[in-house]
């Protein structure tokens, strides 16, 4: 079990001001699998997800305690430890949000954005990697002729796949998805679901989902969260 685990959450507590959101969460997330965090809304699912890339740090009055260990190159690292560089962490742990959030720039620039952040400017490399990321996100064929159009002209489903491509370009080992299909119609959701299944080979996916049938279709492992605690259940 230990070899297959990618993330180990140990005694994680999370408070917004006086409100306790996560209460002693302990869990293991297997590598190269899709783990779904499920449960009633407002019970800390998204908060748990944002702890995994420490986007929760940006929230005022947030307090986190406990350990979140992640395995990178066979070394376990506590990402909540002080001194972990956030930009490094977020390059290993990509994230896709509930509503597609393309930046106000072209399709190409959106996908290449993370390369710009890491200082990779060599044009042929950038082109190559953008193409590959778009292919991995099942979007290349739809946008190859209009890479320099504004990303916001794409449909909702395309925008969400663009956001996935943008997250994939740095080849993160872990990809977090916060209800990635909740703003999409069923057809667009289906495309995303098959995309997630394909990504599993090279990536550990952690997803928040509201849809029972979606969880049944794609998840290898389920973490039921309610009242800020993991309720132990058989995996699906």
């Amino acid at each position: 079990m230990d070899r297959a685990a990618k993330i180990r959450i140990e005694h994680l507590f999370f408070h917004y001001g006086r409100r306790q959101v996560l209460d002693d969460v302990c869990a293991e997330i297997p590598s190269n699998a899709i783990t779904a965090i499920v449960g009633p809304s407002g019970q800390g699912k998204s908060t748990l997800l944002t702890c995994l890339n420490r986007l929760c740090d940006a929230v005022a009055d947030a307090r986190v305690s406990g350990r979140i260990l992640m395995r990178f190159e066979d070394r376990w690292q506590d990402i909540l430890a002080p001194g972990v560089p956030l930009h490094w962490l977020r390059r290993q742990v990509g994230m896709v949000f509930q509503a597609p959030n393309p930046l106000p720039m072209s399709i190409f620039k959106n996908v290449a954005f993370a390369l710009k952040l890491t200082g990779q400017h060599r044009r042929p490399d950038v082109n190559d990697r953008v193409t590959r990321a778009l292919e991995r996100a099942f979007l290349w064929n739809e946008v190859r002729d209009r890479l320099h159009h504004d990303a916001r002209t794409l449909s909702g489903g395309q925008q969400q796949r663009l956001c996935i491509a943008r997250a994939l370009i740095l080849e993160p080992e872990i990809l977090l998805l916060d209800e990635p299909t909740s703003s999409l119609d069923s057809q667009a959701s289906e495309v995303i679901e098959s995309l997630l299944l394909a990504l599993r080979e090279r990536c550990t996916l952690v997803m928040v989902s509201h849809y029972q049938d979606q969880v049944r279709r794609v998840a290898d492992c389920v973490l039921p969260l309610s009242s800020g605690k993991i309720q132990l259940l058989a995996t699906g």
Partner: protein
Amino acid sequence: MDGERLAQKAFLLAAVLSASVTVLLLAFMVILGLPLFQGGLVFRILTAPWLPGRQLFGIWPMIVGTLAIAALALAVAFPLSLGVSSLIAVVAPGRIARLVKSAVAFMTGIPTVVYGFVGVFLLVPLVRETFARGSGLCVLTAGLVLGILVAPTMILFFSDALARVPRSDRIAAEALGATPAQVLIYVLIPGAWRGIVTGLVLAAGRAVGDTLLALMLAGNAAQVPGGVLDSARTLTAHIALVIASDFDSLEFKTLFACGILLYAFTAAATLAVRRLAGKEGPAR
């Protein structure tokens, strides 16, 4: 119902009155300055030096002086304002940002003469001693203090524009591993550039239109300044100085050229801001 109609009429009257004042101002200046436009005199006035002893009443030195002092003020204020507004938006949001912002808002309310006074007693001697040249009343001194004067306008515009950049854009960049500086450079400033340009244009209008600081700090020599340590006179200071000494001479009439120039500059700045604001939208 009747009261409502009455109020409506009163408001309409107020609006028409204030709008017509702007138009009438221009008409007044053009009519009174009309003799200047006859016989190409206006061209000579715009380009000649100011030598009343030789009957030369050109305002060219004042145009250069105005531009030099305003440009220096903007060059000082722009980086300062961008830095302060970035601090408010990115580096220290929360209590420190609120404190800085209210201090900046307070600065906009301080009378200009106070800035001038502080400049005369603190900066003028400092400039004089540091450069060991002239009286300390020069383009540099006036530009520096004017920069401090116009900075709050810019800071408030810039920080509002930065705050209006959608939070989702910021989070998207953060989730990709952008450092706070990268969020600022690649997301916030590009997203806020319209507000930044608007603030810059308005501050330029304020810098050109300010009278008192230049009058108190620039030395008022009616000459084209050769460098930042030279004394200079702005158009506004020129109007204030000449109006106090003369009436109904050619010398006096040239003031209308100054007035029309200032009016044209302000109008151009306002139109530029309007166009920018009108373009506000999703395109980029």
